[in-house]
């Protein structure tokens, strides 16, 4: 009882300064989200799901200030790619910096203007996947995002998008506290690549709901920005239909605290979902990947590939679950989480889980942490490769399986290059 009170008091304090936009259909969805949130309260360290990550800086009423960051001469990721840019500054959409939201086969709406319009497809999606994702584990910060998002983008894809939609998040104020909520609906056979990049704010709370209908294909690639002091809790909820594809990859370099949750439900036969991440941290860095994949149909495939490189006391967390529901026969589930610890001060905490209620499935999971392979390092050096380059080659090799989840070769190469740059900045 005492803990429930703590959670509900924390919630009251957290939302005291926030306003719930009551307008239209969106207002109803927000009120329902608030009702869910009120029944849960905010997470505390004593919750099993937050055992390895302290949620307090994500739940306190005012964010801990975070200095903005100058990336120097490193161009922002995806810069060379032709795309429809939608820019947010400290969590507020900036039309002046954005491209016109026009792309054949794609409808783009701003969340703040959507409440007044009857977008039936968005009405059936906003807060809906988030609500489904509250079982069996509650995710209060996702409900907070549905209830109090101050901005966001609603995207409906009816054809094959000729270029990606790119959400770019600038962080300008040291005390910004951004709450965003996006929805993406891919109709049957539609295709879209969604890019996300940038730190967004001192504290970033974000929810993305993605509904991938039968035969549709969704690619998601994101980079979370190099700010050292930023904090973020992000959720991506996905429902993947028959024969559809969902692929999500996240690159995280730096950040004081990041918790990325992915909640994916394979609801149609032969659906495919891959979720992957490469995270590198040096020093005051805490990165948590929490993933929950549900197989609810036959012959579906899921892959979770999470790799972390940690040094100087950096902390990595992985909580990943594959749930195979009764009847989800011929499931092919794979999960790997690995950390490369570059010194003895860093740590990796992993909780891989399988829960299977069907008898004809193939599921595997593995979790390891280890140091650089000294034998391989010597082998490379003995061929004349200097230790620094050899180390960098081995670290990139360690991350390769995660980066391989990025299908676009140019983007994958760009990501490799950035990781190489990061390694050369964090040598020794």
């Amino acid at each position, binding site marked *: 009882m005492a803990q429930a009170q703590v959670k509900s008091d924390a919630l009251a304090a957290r939302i005291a300064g926030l306003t719930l936009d009551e307008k239209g259909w969106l207002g109803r969805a927000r009120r329902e989200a608030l009702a869910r949130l009120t029944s849960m309260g905010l997470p505390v360290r004593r919750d099993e799901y937050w055992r390895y990550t302290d949620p307090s800086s994500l739940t306190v009423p005012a964010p801990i200030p975070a200095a903005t960051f100058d990336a120097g001469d490193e161009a922002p990721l995806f810069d060379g790619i032709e795309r429809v840019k939608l820019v947010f500054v400290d969590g507020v959409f900036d039309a002046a910096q954005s491209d016109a939201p026009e792309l054949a086969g794609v409808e783009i709406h701003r969340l703040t203007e959507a409440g007044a319009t009857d977008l039936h497809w968005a009405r059936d999606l906003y807060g809906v996947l988030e609500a489904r994702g509250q079982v069996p584990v509650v995710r209060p910060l996702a409900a907070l995002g549905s209830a109090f998002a101050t901005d966001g983008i609603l995207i409906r894809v009816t054809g094959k998008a000729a270029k990606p939609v790119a959400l770019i998040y600038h962080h300008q104020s040291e005390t910004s506290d951004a709450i965003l909520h996006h929805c993406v609906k891919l109709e049957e056979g539609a295709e879209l690549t969604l890019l996300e990049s940038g730190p967004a704010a001192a504290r970033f709370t974000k929810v993305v709901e993605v509904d991938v209908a039968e035969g549709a294909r969704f690619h998601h690639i994101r980079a979370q920005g190099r700010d050292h002091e930023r904090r973020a809790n992000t959720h991506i909820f996905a429902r993947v239909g028959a024969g559809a594809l969902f692929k999500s990859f996240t690159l995280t370099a730096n950040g004081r605290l990041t918790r990325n949750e992915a909640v994916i439900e394979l609801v149609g036969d032969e659906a495919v979902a891959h979720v992957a991440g490469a995270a590198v941290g040096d020093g005051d860095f805490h990165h948590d990947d929490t993933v929950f994949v549900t197989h609810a149909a036959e012959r579906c495939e899921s892959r979770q590939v999470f790799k972390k490189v940690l040094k100087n006391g950096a902390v990595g967390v992985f909580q990943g679950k594959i749930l195979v529901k009764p009847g989800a026969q011929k499931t092919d589930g794979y999960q790997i989480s690995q950390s490369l610890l570059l010194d003895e001060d860093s740590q990796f905490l992993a909780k891989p889980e399988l829960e299977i209620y069907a008898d004809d499935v193939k599921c595997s999971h593995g979790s390891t942490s280890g140091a650089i*392979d*000294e*034998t*391989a390092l*010597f*082998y*490379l*050096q*003995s*061929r*004349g*490769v*200097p*230790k620094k*380059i*050899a180390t960098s*080659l*081995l670290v*990139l*090799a*360690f*991350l*390769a*399986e995660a980066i391989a989840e990025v299908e676009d070769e140019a983007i994958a190469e760009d990501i490799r290059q950035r990781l190489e740059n990061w390694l050369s900045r964090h040598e020794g």
Partner: protein
Amino acid sequence: MLEIKNLHVKLEEEDKVILRGVDLAVKAGEVHAIMGPNGSGKSTLSYVLAGREGYEVTEGSATLEGAELLEMEPEERAAAGLFLAFQYPVEIPGVGNMTFLRTAVNAQRKARGEEELSAGDFLKVVREKAKALKIDSDMLKRPVNVGFSGGEKKRNEILQMAMLEPKMCILDETDSGLDVDAMKLVSDGVNALRDAGRAFLVITHYQRLLDHIKPDVVHIMAAGRIVKTGGPELALEVEHNGYADILAEVK
């Protein structure tokens, strides 16, 4: 070319002495073989020369063309012209064989102040040399040694040697795990590299490799020392009578 004087080596972690005063001189153009029973220190000698960690040199020196090897990093030794073909070539998942070769070749060229090979030139050379060793393009594309058979790994070592064109080549039990055909292929690869400016130190248990790679000098190593040196006939003697006679004679 290679001159080892009174080399004493112990394991860093424990107080175990492995080499107890090795003396050896290999001239340019020569092929020397080292034979010896298990545990005599043959592989340790090769690792110490290549610069592997975990060993402590307590006395002595090893020079390559007059330069002290033991003070160099492993990559500096490689750039100076030393090459060790590993008894157990290391698998490196995630690093493509081709990337590995090009990185190595260009790192050495850079260290020597030479211009790096262009991607096109590199490809041409590597294809030609791989063909001679019957290494197909699939093996070049795969991660270094991952999923290679024993014979493929050894051929891959010789390919690296051919690409890096070292002056002093040490072959550590390159014949282990090879069938007759693979041994011929590997030996042909080695023999193709023999020339007046290059020397070889071939470490082996068996005389049969020396039928293919004909040595000028054969050394017998036991208990951390070279105990006997002779011509190719010494290897035949070992093959027929084992080490017991020689060791007894030395004692």
